[in-house]
């Protein structure tokens, strides 16, 4: 990436555990809220209506966080694509590539946190895999990563065998706590607590750092572990963090379920002096109001616990882009 170009992160899937879709009841609630806010207003052109939506409605009324499972793109300015995870958001991403760049001649580098279904389920619907002339490199630290991908394509679960995909697909095994240079990025994987293990990735290009850390539970009484994650997040411009549960849940009924909370994400980012914390892997039960409330509460927590430095808090939504 040329030094003057900005690193951009695009979110294609932000939901945890399983994709969800907005229900008719939720659409109706949003419409009623919007129409009530618009009453007495003259919104007689698309421009006026759009302006009203952007300026006067809450995000949870005028938008949705979306329901696709984990898939994040790191846009480096180079020709190859870089992704984290291939959840159902990868389907939408693949279709976008087809529309903007054409069906063939593309290379994809996908860094896999782990082979749980919500992180690989987009691949059978990833259209670039169905065209020869595309190259797909799938990186990860799990020995059984390739097996997981092949398994979900096998009968009786899916009609097209993995071996019949026309794209050139390679699996690249990485080791944690080692630096790699891939597509202009310095990449470092780190082992995380999760059922069957998961790995976070620290990406650095020029002076910009993005950390992708999902499906990770943090053992709060293990100070060495907490410090090692603070180091992993150190001075990051953006930390994408699994905040699926509340802190109370992760220390009680959902202890050892392998996920973390907004509170722990903020504490780690404060220790690490990271610039931005992005809440990610949203609980499938949460609706838009609940995720918006989680964001507002996390911003408030940051305010009341702030030291000499502010951490900007974001909540990922499908379609969100952050320029660093």
């Amino acid at each position: 990436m040329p030094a003057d170009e900005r690193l951009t992160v695009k979110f294609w899937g932000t939901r945890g555990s399983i994709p969800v879709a907005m229900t008719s009841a939720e659409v109706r609630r949003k419409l009623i809220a919007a129409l009530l806010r618009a009453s007495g207003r003259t919104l007689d052109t698309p421009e006026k209506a759009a302006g009203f939506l952007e300026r006067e409605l809450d995000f949870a009324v005028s938008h949705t966080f979306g329901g696709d499972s984990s898939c994040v793109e790191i846009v480096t300015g180079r020709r190859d694509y870089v992704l984290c995870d291939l959840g159902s958001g990868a389907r939408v991403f693949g279709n976008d590539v087809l529309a903007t760049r054409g069906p063939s001649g593309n290379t994809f580098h996908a860094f896999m946190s782990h082979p749980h279904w919500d992180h690989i389920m987009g691949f059978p619907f990833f259209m670039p895999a169905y065209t020869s002339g595309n190259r797909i490199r799938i990186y990860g630290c799990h020995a059984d990563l390739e097996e997981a991908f092949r398994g979900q394509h096998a009968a009786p679960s899916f009609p097209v065998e993995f071996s019949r995909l026309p794209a050139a697909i390679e699996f690249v095994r990485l080791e944690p706590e080692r630096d790699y240079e891939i597509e202009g990025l310095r990449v470092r994987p780190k082992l995380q607590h999760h059922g069957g293990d998961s790995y976070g990735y620290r990406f650095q290009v020029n002076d910009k750092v993005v950390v992708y850390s999902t499906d990770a539970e943090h053992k709060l009484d293990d100070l060495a572990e907490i410090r090692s994650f603070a180091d992993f997040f150190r001075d990051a411009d953006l930390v994408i963090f699994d905040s699926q549960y509340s802190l109370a849940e992760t220390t009680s009924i959902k202890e050892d379920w392998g996920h973390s909370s907004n509170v722990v994400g903020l504490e780690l980012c404060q220790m690490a002096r990271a610039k931005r914390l992005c809440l990610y892997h949203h609980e499938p039960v949460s609706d838009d109001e609940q995720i918006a409330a989680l964001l507002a509460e996390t911003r408030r927590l940051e305010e009341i616990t702030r030291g000499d430095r502010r951490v900007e808090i974001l909540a990922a939504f499908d379609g969100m882009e952050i320029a660093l």
Partner: protein
Amino acid sequence: MDLRQKRYADTVVLSPVGRIDHSTSEGFKAALAPYMARCAVGLDRVLLDFVSVEYISSVGLRVLMLASKQAKTQGGSLGVAALQPAVKEIFDISRFTMVLDVFPSVREGLARLSPPALAAFDAG
């Protein structure tokens, strides 16, 4: 961490002071342990007076969760009272108000935990 303690009938009121974070939570846990060992059916009830606690981090909240679990398995009662506004917000945001018994004041905590303790408190 020093815990000031005061007894009202069958209830011990413990008062931690300052910040409960990564550097102090182990001390807080150790100071709490002997009281939690006696927080059982037929023995003591424990009320934590948080009026002098300025901040509590996730690891401190985890100590409270473990103490609460211990109290439950022993058939005892544990409450937390008199949170400063910022600490109350931390409890709300972390959802600890949903899993711990939190009271606006020590008196209200005693009223719920033990009528004899409330009588002793009101008697001064």
